């Protein structure tokens, strides 16, 4: 059940509470088990499982009368980085802090990894669902667009917003620790 955590994470983008997300994940696994014989292999198994999950999470969200604004581009019309970070020529006023103290290793410290997930959890629903499906679950962009009913362009904007917002959330921690 390598994907269980990612499934719960995605489900949580649609429904209000952890416990409802947990139920959606359980329902999904049961549906997968019952429907496995009917799986036709037209998509990857992983995509098929996430498809079931998103459908179930969506219906659950409708029952909860929760609006899921995935087609809207949340906060997408402002700049990714605070404009005061740049001088009048558009250059960095000072180099932004690196997240990784040891860039050669390309591995975040345990503490930063924990904070990374925390930052993803704080994202608006659409950004959270896209980054969870793309980066946590590792689904390709076309499949994420289909699952969430997004255009390629909107999916890219949400992913970009999500990653830059997560980076911005981690940067002060790095500065603090330095």
């Amino acid at each position, binding site marked *: 059940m390598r994907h269980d955590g990612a499934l719960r994470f995605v489900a949580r983008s649609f429904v209000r509470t952890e416990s409802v997300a947990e139920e959606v994940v359980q329902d999904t696994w049961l549906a997968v088990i019952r429907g496995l014989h009917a799986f036709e292999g037209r998509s990857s198994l992983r995509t098929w499982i996430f498809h079931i999950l998103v459908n179930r999470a969506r219906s659950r969200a409708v029952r909860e009368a929760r609006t899921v604004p995935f087609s809207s581009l949340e906060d997408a019309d*402002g700049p990714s980085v605070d404009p005061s970070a740049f001088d009048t020529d*558009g250059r960095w006023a000072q180099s932004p802090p690196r997240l990784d103290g040891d860039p050669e290793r390309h591995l975040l410290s345990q503490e930063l990894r924990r904070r990374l997930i925390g930052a993803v959890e704080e994202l608006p629903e659409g950004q959270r669902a896209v980054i969870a499906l793309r980066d946590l679950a590792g689904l390709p962009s076309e499949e994420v667009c289909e699952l969430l009913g997004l255009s390629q362009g909107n999916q890219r904007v949400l992913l970009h917003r999500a990653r830059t917002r997560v980076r911005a959330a981690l940067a002060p921690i790095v500065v603090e620790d330095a």
Partner: protein
Amino acid sequence: MIRLRLRRRRSPNPLACREFVELVSDYLEGTLPPDVRARVDAHLAECDACTGYLEDVRMIATTLPTIELPETDPATHAALVAAFRDAQRG
């Protein structure tokens, strides 16, 4: 709302850091048109700060899949295994 004013210059049309941060994900996704990608490459070649920023964003994308998320609780796991066995028999 602050509008980004793209600087229009004739060749070589250099990219500002402020523009680069809006293109970083599309650059990583490989979805930029070739001329824009070339401008980004030219900018990265001479800007350490943006190269670092790019590596940070890339690292977020590559670190997320390696993070262990909480697994299913044992009771749920057992129930699912039982359901799976039932389905096999049925």
